[in-house]
């Protein structure tokens, strides 16, 4: 594996530390990514020199803060190739964006007997909002299944999406299966029956180039913190005409046009959906993260991660003691790898790996219906990002071997 594609470890001070007396190997990037210095410095700069509320004051700091906040919106607009900046709504994160859609577009457009189609691999944040909406409206929630290889089943998708379908909401990339879903094809299926398509982009946008116009999606929600921005900031992209038809999500300052005693009118996009003081510093930090990723280039990011998967996945698949979930072909697998060591509960495995300095996730990954579908209680999950190296992969493989030995031979040998 050639790790010269990206060499950015020095930009991430957090990675340069010992955990449990071992070099930290951070492989929990699907949960949250580490932040480069430029991102935390941009937060410092904002709070140290420009801090003020936006779109309110006429003083100099207010102007600077407003300009920086709106510049961040433009950076996001360019990053996802939205048609205009007004289509970029700042949210708290993916969950917030998806809940906003269920509470606005969903409340307005879903009626008794309508269908909402999601997939069995959805994260709870793209499942429960639709499940609860379906319950409220007496609508039907349908699930697209997986192929034997663990990919989204397009044949099943074509069967599940019908003339009664009003919303199709699908993850762009799975947070468990390590698959990238065929969003363009799903958008076509949805649009053919007059439905809209919503995409949970949380696990895709940090890792691959996303063009919302090329994908022809109606809405695309993602989080800042998984793409090296701060926590508590995210984005909901929506097509202008759809956002325009939607009622506001929350009411308050900033989102109004004029308020009378008995009625109010709403301001234009995107501020109609940004009631109250927003996470201004968070948006600016996200803008810096977008710059950072753009400088490196999303093609390079994707290429770097593919090299890691090409190197690691075949080794895991070839090991009889390891069960890998999702596609076994590295070309079809993202840098999110869910697996189990046979006979060892993932919690025990994660504790053991942590003692070796390797941070992985263990649990149901907020995808309980998928766990049930796969017939497992929980899995371990290693997830990679652009700052991970071949050395990290080797440390991870060594820690796996040591963990196997530890649990196979008990503790007596080490005593």
């Amino acid at each position, binding site marked *: 594996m050639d790790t010269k594609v990206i060499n950015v470890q020095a930009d991430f001070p957090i990675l340069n530390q010992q955990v*449990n*007396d*071992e070099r930290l190997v951070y492989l929990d990037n699907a949960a949250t990514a580490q932040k480069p210095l430029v991102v935390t410095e941009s937060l410092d700069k904002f709070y140290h020199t420009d801090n003020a509320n936006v779109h309110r004051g006429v003083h100099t700091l207010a102007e600077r803060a407003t300009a920086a906040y709106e510049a961040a919106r433009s950076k996001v607009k360019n990053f996802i190739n939205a048609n205009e900046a007004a289509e970029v709504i700042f949210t708290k994160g993916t969950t917030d964006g998806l809940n906003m859609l269920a509470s606005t577009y969903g409340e307005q457009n879903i009626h008794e007997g309508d269908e909402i189609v999601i997939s069995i691999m959805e994260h709870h944040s793209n499942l429960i909002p639709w499940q609860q909406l379906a319950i409220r409206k007496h609508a039907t929630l349908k699930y697209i299944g997986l192929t034997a290889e663990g990919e989204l089943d397009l044949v099943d998708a074509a069967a599940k999406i019908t003339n009664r379908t009003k919303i199709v909401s699908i993850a762009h990339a799975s947070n468990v299966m390590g698959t990238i879903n065929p969003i363009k094809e799903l958008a076509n299926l949805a649009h053919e029956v007059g439905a809209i398509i919503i995409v949970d982009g949380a696990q895709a946008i940090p890792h691959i180039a996303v063009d919302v116009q090329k994908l022809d999606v109606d809405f695309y929600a993602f989080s800042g913190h998984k793409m090296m921005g701060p926590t508590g900031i995210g984005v909901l992209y929506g097509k202008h005409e759809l956002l325009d038809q939607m009622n506001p999500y929350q009411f308050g300052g900033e989102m109004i046009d004029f308020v009378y005693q008995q009625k109010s009118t709403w301001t234009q996009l995107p501020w109609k959906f940004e009631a109250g003081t927003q996470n201004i510093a968070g948006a600016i930090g996200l803008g810096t993260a977008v710059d950072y990723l753009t400088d490196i280039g999303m093609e390079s990011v994707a290429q770097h991660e593919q090299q890691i998967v090409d190197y690691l996945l075949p080794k895991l698949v070839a090991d009889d003691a390891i069960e890998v979930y999702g596609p076994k072909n590295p070309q079809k697998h993202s840098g999110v790898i869910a697996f189990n060591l046979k006979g*060892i*509960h*993932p*919690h*025990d495995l994660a*504790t*053991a790996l942590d*003692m*070796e*300095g390797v941070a992985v996730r*263990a*649990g*149901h990954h907020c995808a*309980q219906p998928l*766990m049930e579908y796969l017939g497992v*209680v*929980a899995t371990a999950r290693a997830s990679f990002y652009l700052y991970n190296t071949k050395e990290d992969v080797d440390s991870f493989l060594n*820690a796996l071997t*040591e*963990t196997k030995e*530890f*649990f196979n031979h*008990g*503790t*007596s040998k*080490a*005593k």
Partner: protein
Amino acid sequence: MGLAKLNNLYREVILDHSDHPHHKGQLAVDDVSNEITLKNPTCGDVINLEIKLSTDDIIENIGFTGDGCTISQSSASMMTDAVLGKSKDDALKMAKTFSDMVMGKQHAQADLDELDDAAILSSIVSFPARIKCATLAWWALQRALLNQNESGKDNVKSS
């Protein structure tokens, strides 16, 4: 380095309990006086605990089923060993001792001795992410004995 530290947690006795759990299985239906199913929502672990209380509130029989990690399975095994034959009040007191112990609170040595093998899990204090795994069985015991089995409330709260 590294895994050697795990010995503090995964001592032989713990691995032995998880490999060969005691009182794993269901009681005869007519024997069950108290029962509960608890889930640990962070990992999906489930424990079902069945207890036979005598008319004078002595734990005459106890059994558990469910899936879980080494810590939760061995804790359940050690818990059933410790409370079998004890009165309901004594068992509740032990559950409190165990809960205090894993949170790092001091307790009289006599109380810890009561816990038998389960006292070994005091080392869980240095593995905060795993405390819930250890306490699940004792939570189940407490809730089953107090008949707190209402649906919708039977989840262990995430810390």
